[in-house]
């Protein structure tokens, strides 16, 4: 009986360990795999506009009502700037850490500008900066975002009201750029 109890307990403890390993490590590994797929499209610190077929492969649950562009950033050499041209209609920028946290986001209504410089700095080197707020309305603006990690992902999304507008909205997103800050 004590032998059976031993093996039963061992199976439960192993099950607990596997459960925790899956919950704690698989999400990060999947996020990093996703970032590797995005960076394979255009490289690091560069913006890639995602055609529907590519999007289907990398983000299968992507909303067909949106056009997507992505920039995998690496802050090792210094800050990165996303120069965004905001199209008319709904637009959203989200910044993700490699663990999947969306640590900054801003939509077109909150931004209320036509162009936006989103400067991403490493948290350790950005002490004292104003971060995470919306820009001042009316003018072209700059926002500084403190990243908790050196790597991450910027995702730009814009609404595509009807399929026929897709190419035009993707062209609008392509007017944005992602590069090391000079």
């Amino acid at each position, binding site marked *: 009986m004590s032998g059976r109890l031993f093996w039963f307990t061992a199976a439960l403890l192993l099950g607990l360990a596997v459960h925790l390993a899956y919950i704690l490590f698989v999400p990060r590994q999947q996020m990093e795999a996703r970032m590797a797929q995005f960076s394979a499209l255009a490289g690091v610190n560069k913006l890639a506009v995602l055609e529907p077929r590519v999007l289907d492969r990398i983000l299968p649950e992507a909303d067909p009502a949106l056009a997507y562009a992505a920039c995998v950033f690496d802050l090792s050499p210094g800050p990165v700037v996303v120069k965004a041209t905001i199209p008319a209609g709904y637009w959203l920028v989200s910044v993700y850490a490699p663990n999947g946290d*969306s640590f900054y986001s801003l939509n077109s209504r909150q931004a209320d500008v036509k162009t936006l410089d989103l400067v991403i700095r490493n948290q350790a080197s950005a002490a004292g900066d104003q971060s995470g707020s919306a820009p001042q309305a009316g003018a072209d603006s700059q926002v500084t975002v403190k990243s908790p990690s050196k790597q991450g992902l910027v995702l730009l999304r814009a609404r595509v009201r009807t399929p026929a507008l897709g190419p035009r909205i993707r062209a609008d997103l392509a007017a944005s750029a992602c590069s090391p800050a000079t």
Partner: protein
Amino acid sequence: MFGRIKLALTCLIGMAIGLWSAHDLANGGFDLVARTQGPWQTWPSAGLNTMDPYTKAHFLAAGRLPDNRREIVEYEAWSDSDGRPIDATCTYTVQGRLDWSRWWSISVTQNGAVEPRKAGRTYSLDSGEIVYQPDDLARVSVSAQAASGNWLAMPASGNVGLLLRFYDPVPGTRERPGIQSLPQVVRQDCQ
């Protein structure tokens, strides 16, 4: 010899328990991490810096990016309003009030993926494309055969679900997801 068999069996059973329980809780959720309202389920901590590990696993392990609910509130449904799993051989009506955000979209998912829009067959509708009822309710048919009015194509097979996304939600929706009335998912005919 007998000890090695016991050890191998214990490892197999332990790994199976661990993977099954992690997958089950990350997919189906539980009260502490996911909120259920009728057939719809939402994960309130998605995308926030307080996001719990099960919510992370729910989105990221399935290849999805979790969105901060201040920007996008997502609801998933895998069953109809009577609790029956959504069946690809049936037709459904999704009807209700959906004005909880600047705009919204509804998609049919097949094994977790949304098919891109295709001419003559759409798996996703934008609120701007919706023709509303006189009482401002949205009514969407989900069926294999094209239907008049707002129509979403039903995939031929697979694990079918519905995904409702509210973009730029009104304060009540983003601060307390799950308080607003959500559409009914009503099964009609089955083949």
